[in-house]
C-alpha cells in the first residue's frame, strides 16, 4: 500500500546511480583533447595513484613522476586526468549534490516547492563576501604587509564567501525569530529583503571595481567548476561530504514537517532543533559550494522538482535521489560549458540559468494551474 516499495526505491536509486556513472565517465573523456573510453579506463588507476602520490605537490608540470614506465603521451593523459579532469569531476559531483540536497531541504522546511538555497540569502551573502575580497583584497594585503603572500589572497576569497553566507543567514534567522520560534513566512520575507540589500551592495562594488577585478568578479559570479588546487578541493570534500550524509538523515522529520510544524511536534519531533540544525547545515554546504565554484543557480530549485515529479514527495527517497541527480546534472552542464565554445569555456552558471530559468517558469505556470483547479 505504501507508495513505493523497498524494491522500487532501490531500483530507482540504482538507475540514477547508473546514469551518474555514465555521465561521470563521459566527463572524464571530454576536454580540449577528447580521449577514447578505453584509454580513460586504462589510465584511471595510474591517475588515481598519481593523485595520492606523496611527491605530487613538488612535481613541476612537465616532469612526470611515472615517466620511467610510460611513454610521454600516456604520461600526459595521466597528468590531465589527475590534475584537471578528476578534480573537476569531483567538484561537479560535490557541488551538484550539495545544491540539490539543500534545495530539497529548503523546500521541505518552507513547505513551499518554490523555495531555494538562494532564498535565505546564503548565496548572495557569500557572493558579497567574495566580491569584497576581489575588490579590496589587494589593498588589504598591502595594509597587512602581506602583498607577497599568494596564499593570503588564495584563501581570502573562500573565507570571506563562507563568512558572508553564514552572516547573512544568521541575520535572516534572527529576524525571523518570533517569540523564540522561527516563523517561516517572516523568514521568507526577510530573505527577500536581505537578498535585495546584498544585491545592491554587490552592484555598488562592481561599479567601483577596476577592469581586471571586474573580469574576475563576473567570471566568479557566473560560476565555474575550474579548479587547479587539490588542497581547496580536499577541504570542500571534507566539509561537504559529511554534511550531505548528515542531511540525508532528515527524511522522516521533513516528511512530518510537510504535515505542519505543530503536527510534526505531535508526532514526536523537536522541530525547533531540527530547523536550526538544517539551517546551519544548508549554510555550510551552500557557503562552501559558493566558495569553490562561484554562484551556480537553479540546480537547487530544478533538481528537487524533477525528482519529485518522478518519485513523489517522500523525503527519505527524495534526499538521496536529488543528491545523485543534482551531481549528474551539474557534471553534464559542465561538459556543455566546456564543449560549446571549445577551447574557450562558458561559465557554468549561464548554462544552468539558461536551461533552468524556462523550466522554473513552466513550473510556476503549472503550479498556479494546479492551485486554481484545487
Amino acid at each position, binding site marked *: 500500500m505504501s507508495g513505493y516499495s523497498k524494491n522500487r526505491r532501490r531500483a530507482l536509486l540504482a538507475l540514477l546511480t547508473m546514469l551518474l556513472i555514465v555521465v561521470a565517465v563521459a566527463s572524464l573523456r571530454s576536454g580540449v583533447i577528447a580521449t577514447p573510453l578505453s584509454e580513460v579506463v586504462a589510465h584511471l588507476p595510474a591517475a588515481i595513484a598519481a593523485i595520492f602520490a606523496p611527491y605530487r605537490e613538488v612535481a613541476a608540470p612537465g616532469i612526470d613522476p611515472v615517466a620511467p614506465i610510460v611513454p610521454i603521451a600516456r604520461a600526459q593523459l595521466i597528468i590531465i586526468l589527475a590534475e584537471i579532469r578528476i578534480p573537476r569531476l569531483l567538484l561537479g559531483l560535490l557541488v551538484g549534490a550539495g545544491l540539490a540536497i539543500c534545495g530539497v531541504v529548503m523546500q521541505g522546511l518552507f*513547505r513551499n516547492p518554490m523555495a531555494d538555497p538562494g532564498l535565505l540569502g546564503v548565496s548572495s551573502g557569500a557572493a558579497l563576501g567574495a566580491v569584497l575580497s576581489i575588490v579590496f583584497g589587494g589593498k588589504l594585503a598591502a595594509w597587512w604587509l602581506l602583498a607577497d603572500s599568494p596564499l593570503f589572497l588564495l584563501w581570502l576569497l573562500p573565507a570571506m564567501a563562507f563568512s558572508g553566507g553564514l552572516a547573512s543567514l544568521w541575520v535572516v534567522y534572527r529576524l525571523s525569530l518570533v517569540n523564540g520560534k522561527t516563523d517561516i513566512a517572516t523568514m521568507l520575507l526577510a530573505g527577500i529583503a536581505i537578498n535585495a540589500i546584498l544585491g545592491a551592495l554587490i552592484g555598488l562594488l562592481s561599479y567601483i571595481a577596476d577592469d581586471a577585478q571586474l573580469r574576475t568578479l563576473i567570471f566568479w559570479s557566473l560560476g565555474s567548476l575550474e579548479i587547479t588546487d587539490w588542497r581547496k578541493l580536499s577541504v570542500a570534500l571534507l566539509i561537504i561530504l559529511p554534511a550531505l550524509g548528515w542531511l540525508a538523515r532528515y527524511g522522516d522529520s521533513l516528511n512530518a514537517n*510537510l*504535515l505542519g510544524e505543530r503536527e510534526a*511536534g505531535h*508526532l*514526536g519531533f523537536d522541530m525547533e532543533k531540527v530547523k536550526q540544525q538544517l539551517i546551519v547545515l544548508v549554510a555550510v554546504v551552500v557557503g562552501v559550494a559558493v566558495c569553490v565554484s562561484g554562484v551556480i543557480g537553479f540546480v537547487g530549485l530544478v533538481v528537487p522538482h524533477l525528482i519529485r515529479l518522478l518519485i513523489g*514527495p517522500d523525503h527519505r527517497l527524495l534526499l538521496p535521489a536529488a543528491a545523485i541527480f543534482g551531481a549528474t546534472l551539474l557534471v553534464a552542464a559542465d561538459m556543455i560549458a566546456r564543449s560549446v565554445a571549445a577551447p574557450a569555456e562558458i561559465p557554468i552558471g549561464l548554462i544552468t540559468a539558461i536551461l533552468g530559468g524556462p523550466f522554473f517558469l513552466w513550473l510556476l505556470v503549472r503550479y498556479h494551474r494546479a492551485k486554481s483547479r*484545487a
Partner: protein
Amino acid sequence: MLNAHKVSVHRGGRALLDGFTARFAPAELAMVVGANGAGKTTLLRCLNGELPPTHGSVEFASRPLAHWSRVQLARARAVLPQQSSLDFPFIVGDVALMGRMPHATSAAENRAIAAEALALCDCAHLIARAYTSLSGGEQQRVQIARVIAQIYRRRAAREPEHERFLLLDEPVAALDLSHQYALMRLLKRLQSEHKIGIVCALHNLNLVAQFADRALVMQRGKLVADGAPLEVFTESLMREVFNLEVAVQRHPENNAIPLLIPRLTNDSNIN
C-alpha cells in the same frame, strides 16, 4: 487521566483561558462547546502541550506534560488540529503511515495499522490516491485516519494497556452529514472498544447531545458547565452562552438524549 489544574493563558492582558480545571478519564468521550473565541482551541493546545499555560498545570498519566519525552507522548496521544497544511502529493497510504512515525513497531505492522485506520474512516478505497487530489472532506478523513493510526493497537498485537488520548479540534467542519455521524460513531467505538480517552471541540450541539458522555461548556475562557449533555444543555444556558433561544426536547427514540431546536421567534439578539 488527563488532568488540567487551574490552567490560565494570558495574551496581551486578556485571559484566553481562565482557571480551567477538569479531569479527563481514559475511555471517556468528552466534548467541548462554546461560542467562537470562547477558548476551546486554547484549551486543546494546553492539553496537548503546544501552549505552556501562564498559570496552572496539565498532567498526563500523573506526570506533568513538560516531563514527558516528545516520543513517549506521541506514542500515547494524538492531536488533530483545526486545519491541515499538507500540500504535497503524498500517497494517502503514506499519509496514514506518518502516524506510525513515533513507534518502533515493524514496517508490516505499521502498514497493517495504517490500512485499518483508513478503513475505519471509510478511506480504504482512497489508499493509493494522491492526497492533493482528494476533496476537502476526504482529506480531513485521511488526517483523522493518520491520528488514529498514531495511537491504534491491533487486537493481535496487544501490549499491556497504557492510557491513550485523542485530542480533536473541530474534526467535522469539512465533512458531509453522513460522514459527520460516521465519525461520531467511530469516536464512540474508539472510546468504548479501544479505551481511548477523547477530548473533542465541536460546534454542532445536537451531535454533542447524541454522542458525548460529557459536555464541557466554555464562555470567555471559563468553564461554565460540565456534565452529561442532558443535565448541561438547558434553555437558560443556551441563552446565556450562545445568545440563542432554543427549545430543549427529547430525542424521539431515546429519552436520555436532549434535542435542541432553535425557536422561530425572538431567536437571537446578535444584532
